[in-house]
Every structure is written in structure tokens, then in C-alpha cells.
């Protein structure tokens, strides 16, 4: 049994330790918001947070997160701590209508949340560089960038 926190809930998983966290989330825990894209940490569709750091769950053995706190897109809103249904990034994503097919967007959101965690007021270059490893095949990049800017502004405004 491997124990860890997922979206603030204690879970215990009976699986080989080298099973990628991605499949544990999707098929053991029914959290299918996290997506399988490339399987080799090149597209970012599977991005989650492990102890607040963005990680590619497709190459993260579940044993390595024992005792850690994992956050998926399903738990993102709660991390804002304001009791709202949507994280400021999710609200911004809707505001600018960022998703097209949407498949990469959970990963984009989790990557963006990690970016704002480290760089609360990112420049355009900070956003581009911070998000470069997350592929959007529909190429909704213009709006993703815009949404991150918008969320940063609303978060920063909220703190003032």
C-alpha cells in the first residue's frame, strides 16, 4: 500500500510502485481530468502538483509520491482557499474562452498555477518560457497567455 494525499484526501493505493502516477489518478482514483498525451514528459497534458511543484505524472512512479500531497485539476479550485468554485486561473480561462479541444488544458492550468506560485506577476516572457513545455495541439496559445496574465492581475488585485 502506498499512501499519499490527493486533493487533500488521504488515499491508499495497492499498485506496483513503478506504476506512473498518471494511471493511478485516472484508473485507480477516477480522476480523469489529468490526461495521457505522450508518456515521455514532452507534452505536459499530465501535469499535476506534487507538494506544490508541477510534475509530469506520466513519468512519476507512484512510489515516489508516498507521503506527498498531490493536486490535480479537480482540486485546483480548492488551492485558492477562497471557497470559490473556480480557481482564478480557471475563471480567467473561461473569461478568455481559452480551451479549444481542451485535452491539454488541465495540464496547462496546473503548469500555470505552479508558474504563478513562483512568479506572481509574470512578464510575457516569463509566461512563454514557463509554459513552453506544455503543448497545445489546437494552438490556443494566444488565449492561454492572455488568461494567465488576467489571473495574475486578479490574484494580485485580490491581495492588495
Amino acid at each position: 500500500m502506498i499512501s499519499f494525499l490527493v486533493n487533500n484526501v488521504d488515499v491508499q493505493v495497492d499498485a506496483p510502485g513503478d506504476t506512473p502516477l498518471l494511471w493511478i489518478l485516472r484508473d485507480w482514483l477516477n480522476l480523469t481530468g489529468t490526461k495521457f498525451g505522450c508518456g515521455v514528459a514532452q507534452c505536459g497534458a499530465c501535469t499535476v502538483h506534487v507538494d506544490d511543484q508541477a510534475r509530469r505524472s506520466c513519468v512519476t512512479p507512484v512510489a515516489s509520491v508516498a507521503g506527498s500531497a498531490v493536486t490535480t485539476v479537480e482540486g485546483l479550485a480548492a488551492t485558492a482557499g477562497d471557497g470559490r468554485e473556480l480557481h482564478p486561473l480557471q475563471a480567467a480561462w473561461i473569461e478568455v474562452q481559452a480551451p479549444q479541444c481542451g485535452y491539454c488544458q488541465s495540464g496547462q492550468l496546473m503548469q500555470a498555477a505552479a508558474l504563478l506560485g513562483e512568479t506572481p506577476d509574470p512578464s510575457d516572457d516569463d509566461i512563454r518560457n514557463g509554459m513552453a513545455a506544455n503543448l497545445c495541439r489546437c494552438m490556443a496559445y494566444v488565449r492561454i497567455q492572455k488568461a494567465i496574465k488576467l489571473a495574475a492581475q486578479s490574484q494580485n488585485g485580490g491581495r492588495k
Partner: protein
Amino acid sequence: MSAVDVTRRWFLASLGSAAVATGFLPGGAQAGPLFGDVSSRGYSPTLWYEISGDGRILVHVTRAEMGQHIGTALARIVAEELEANWDHVEVVHVDTDPRWGVMITGGSWSVHKSFDQLSRAGAAGRIALLEAGARMLGAPLKDCVARASEVRHGARAISYADIVSSGSVTRQFTEEDLKAIALKPASERRFLNRDAAARDVPSKVNGTAVYGIDRKVDGMVFARPVLPPTRYGNSIVSWDDGAARKLPGYLSTVVIDDPTGTCQGWLVAVAESWPVAAKAADLIAVSYRSDGGAASEDQMLAEGARLVENPTTGGIFFQEGAPLMRIAEADALHEGVYRTHTVLHMHLEALNALAWQDGSTWHVHAGNQWQSVTLPLVAEALGIDQADLVFETSYLGGGFGRRLYCEYIVPAALAAKKMGRPVKLIFARSDDTKFDQPRSPTVQRLRSVTDGRGALLAYDHRCASGWPTRSIVPEFLAPSADGHGTVDVFAINGAGHLYDTASQRIQAICNDVVHATMLPGYLRSVAPGYTTWAVETHIDELAHKLGRDPAEYRRALLGAKGRNGGAAPHAVGGANRLRAVLERVLEKAGWSAREALPPGKGMGLALGTGQERDMPTWIATVAQVFVDVSSGAVTVERLTSVVDAGTLAHPDGALAQVEGSMLWGLSLALFESTEYEKGLPRDLNLDTYTPVRMTDVPELDIEFLRNDHMPVGLGEPGVISIAPAIGNAIFAAIGDRVCHLPIRPEAIRAAMGA
């Protein structure tokens, strides 16, 4: 003049007749029956929506949602004529049922093809509700109006919900009634050309949207394919899963014995979880008998080069006059050869399908763009009647044409049959890429003759490529315009440009070396993605050769003569609308100041009218680039596109499609390609196959010319003018031209003679 009279209409008509033979009825098109279903659920004036007793308007969407927000766009069309309250409108993506008729999502057709049908359906509902509402209000019909899901008479109103729940709306419509309805004048529109939030977006930001890969059913097991060394000609001699059997959770290996011949030499590894199935697939030792094609990229391109020079090959897509005579007699001939390398779909949701049997009915859950072609294939593979097979509908994690012909459902269904339990087959990314249906390599030769003033006297375009339609639905190949042989219009569309030309011939040639090796597919922008690259590069070369400003030269050729003058309702204005987007893009991009750009920078122009002459979206693009002459690296600084797509059913969705498609065009121009080696693509994953990332995105400047004409396509047309605009900008910057895609730095250095 002889043209292949197989355009989109022919294609769909054929689909319709094929569909009748297989038990499908074309949606709402049969003569005789009345539409107007009054049931306990509510009122349904046609198939396309129903109004329930609580006033909800459920719009039945048969097109796949793969990023276009298509449900929103189609529901806006219904809502417009129905005079609905938008808040009451819901989008329902329906499963396969013969009553929906042909189900296909491709060709950028969805809005265009549905517009008239859905408009009339909406109007029929409004008429029926107005009549019933007037009766209930005791008011003269002529004094009542429908607005926001109410019938109003002066200050009094009755809601659609009350009318429907009272059971007093009973009006039925014949096909002739529907045709006779006069649609609202554009001045009365309240929905079209106006924005609304897309209905699919909220579920796509919180993880609740359901894609093919997300579905679960009880008792389901997981599988990964074990693929043969090439697409065709493989059979299994022996196999051994001894190593796999040591994996806890491994269940078995299924030999895919496929009566349709789709899977040639496939196995499927089955396990309790996908990671175990994935590992097992790598551990299964297989020996094959192989006699399939295993050509390299160079061999496919060499064959293409040979074919375009061989006068006996090819079917005629369009011919007018006797261009070859003019070419033979010409003092000066301008000739160019343009090539493109193989490109891959790389839709981010890896191929997958879940199949299971429930009583006598088989179910499939998988992303799907063309249910009407895949469902009969899967039924044949399973040996069942099509009536016993249902495809559930889910969102697609990217379609881009790869999920039109969903041959990957066959091994999932056969594995489920063999296992006697539900099987979810998921391809590893490398599996998906190996058996992609790529855009094949292409070789095109263009020859033209002009008079002293630059008018096109003769024009000859020969294009050698894979023909997706030949592999997927060969019965839909069109007869050549001269009666000899066939043409895949989806391999040559876009070649029929709108420049006035005294005589011309356009031919499509099927590259058999491609077909022996890969299953060439439809890839976003399809043929115009390479034909327009050739046409717009060639026209640019001509302009420079004649010493003309490429913009002014194009303008001079856009005289809208003959068939270039357009046709109603789909192509009103023809080349005049292309000239209008051209004028506007020149203004926006600052074309007149281009000579003042610093060394190494240049502007290039290209026009596009994808996806086809019968449904042109008029686009003009100016690219501004910087070329680092020492490395050959190209930086695209700005892309300016002006688009006329007629009425926009969902303007913000239209803009999103153009944003994405312009970047897709940039990706195909500079970033994406693979080369076949021994029958497979060399680049199997996103470590070496490198689409545009956020760091590569230039400034995008987009404008729609707004009007009330028939809506046309938007998913793909934005792609096609980008590559030639960039190529032409590179020429403007350095005075050298690269005539093959993608344009890599080494090709630029070679062109500069470095």
C-alpha cells in the same frame, strides 16, 4: 471547360445514397414523411431539436466536438430562427442512430452544411409556436411576435414552455413546407454575428469533460496494440508472451484476426491496468512474415518527382482551353517544382477505443469524426448487423482529420469479442505515430505562360501525392474530367485558384509508392495545405520575374471573370471578396512600408480560398519575418490575416479557429515534418517531432470582414495561406527561395549558397 463535377455536393450526395443502401437515411431529406413530433417529451418540429415542456430547447448535434465549440455554433443557428431564449438552449451530442443520417465532421463543413437545414428547422418551430401561442392568447396571428422563447401580443406574452406543455402545438411540416419557409432578413438577426460563451468551455477547465479515453464500464480491462513492422502485408508466424506472463496483472495476448483486412498482423496485449498492458506489449516476441511496402521518404518523393514529369499519369480535376499547346509554343515558360514532407497529426489524445457487448448490442466509446464510415467497418469486423452497433459520442482530444477513418476501433472491438469483456484499447504515443494516417509527401509541378503585361495565358498544375479517399472510401473517387481514370478531389482541392487564366489544366496524380507504405490521411487543411503553398509561391515567383509588386500583380489577376465571379449562395462575389481581403491586409500590415524594413527582414503575401471552390473562405495573409543569414534561422515576427467567412455563427469561436489555424500553418511552414524510414515515420514522439510551442508564437493580427452572406468554413482555411506567405517573406528578406516544406535553416543556407 471541363471540371470534375465532384465537389462537396457530389461527395455528400454519394454518401447519402451509400447510406440509404446501408440503412441510413439522410437526415431530414426523405420525401413524404411529416416532421413535427408531438410526444410526451415535448415538441420537435424536425429532427434537429426538441422543446420540452419546461421550455428547454435541446439541440441535437451530430458533429463531433473537437475544439470548434461546434454545438454552440449550431445551436446559435437554431436559436436565431426559433427566436429562442439562449439561456434555455442546450447542446446534446447524439449517439449514432440511423435517423441522424450521415455523421461526418470534417472539411470545415459543419456550419456551412448545417446552416440552411438548421435555420429552416428553427423557423419551423417559430411558426408552429406563433400559431399555437396566438390561439392561446386569443390574438390575431399577424399581431403576434416571437421573441426570447415567448409569443408576445402587445403587453401580453406566453412562454414556449407553456405552449408546449399545454399540448396545443401540433403543426407538422413536409419537406416542401420547410423549403418554402422564408428565413428572417439579416436585419432581424439577434444571434448570428453576435457573441456568446461557448457551452463546452466550463467542463474543459475543471476536468469534467469526457473524452474517448475517459470512459469506464464495469468489468473493463485494458489493452495496448503490438504493431507489425509496417502498415501493410504482415502476418504473424509465431509469438511468445512468456516474458509478459511474469507481469502481475497481465491477462492475455489476443491475435487480431480481422475479416476486414484492416489490421494485418496485429496482436493486442490485455491486462488489468494500462501500464501493465503497455509493458506486456513490449515483452511479447513476435515473428512476422512481411511483404509490405517499406519505402523511405526519399523514395516516395522521387516517385512523386517522376510522376509529375510523366505526361501519361494523372486525372484531370479542371481543364479550360488548351494550355499545353500554349506552353509548347511559348518563348518563355515559368516552371516551378514544390515539395512537402510527411506531416503527422499528433492529436494529443492518443488513439483509443472502448468496446463492449451489452445483450445483443455492441457499444463503442471513442472519439470519432466520421461515424458513417467507421461504423459499417466495425460491424463487418465483428460480423454483426449495423443495427446492433452503437457509437457513443464523446469529446475528441484533437481530431485534425485523424479521427475520420477510425480503423483503430477494429482491434478494440475484436479484442473485446475474444476476451468476452469490455476492452479499452489505448495506443502508446509511439504506436499512434507509427500508424498515423499522415499527410503524405507531395511533389507539384507548375508551369505558366504570361503575356507582356503579366496576364496568365496558360497554366498547368500537376500534383502527385497520396490519395486519402482511395484508401478510405475508394467509391468516392471522382471520374476524371476527361473520362479517363479518377481523381481524389480531397488530394487536389485548392489548386483551382481564383486568378483569371486564359487556359489551364489541373491534374491530380496518385503516388503508389506512398500507398504501398502508409495509409495517407486527411490532415487539417487537407489538399489546400499543399496546393495553395505551390500556387501562391508560383504566383509570387511570377510577380518578381515580371518586376511587379506581388500585391499589385495579384490584384491585377483577380478580375472575377467567368467562374471566378462566384456563385450564390455559397460563393457570392467570388474573386471580388478575395480582392477585398487583400486590400485590407495590405493596409493593416503596412505593406507599402515594406521596403523600409531593415536588412534580413521581409514581408510576404499569400491568398487562400480553402477549403474548396464551392465553399471558399477568403483569406489574405501578410507574414513579416527576420532571417538570420548566418544560421538560416527564420523568426516570424508578425502574421496578419484578414478573413471573410460570411456570417459568423459564433464569432469568438471563429476567431479562436483562425488563431489556432494560423499557428498550425506556421507549424507546418517551419517546425513540423518527419521522414519515413523503412515504412515508418522516423519521429515517433514529441521529443523529436516539434510543433509550435508558446515560445514560437508571433504577433497575430486578425480581422474578419463582416457581412451577412452564407457562412463558410473556419476550422482549416486559416492554415493555408500561412506557409506561402512565410516563404514569400523569406524571399523578400534574402532574395532566395526555398520551395519545399517545412523550410528548415539548412535549406535556407543551401538556397543562399552558403
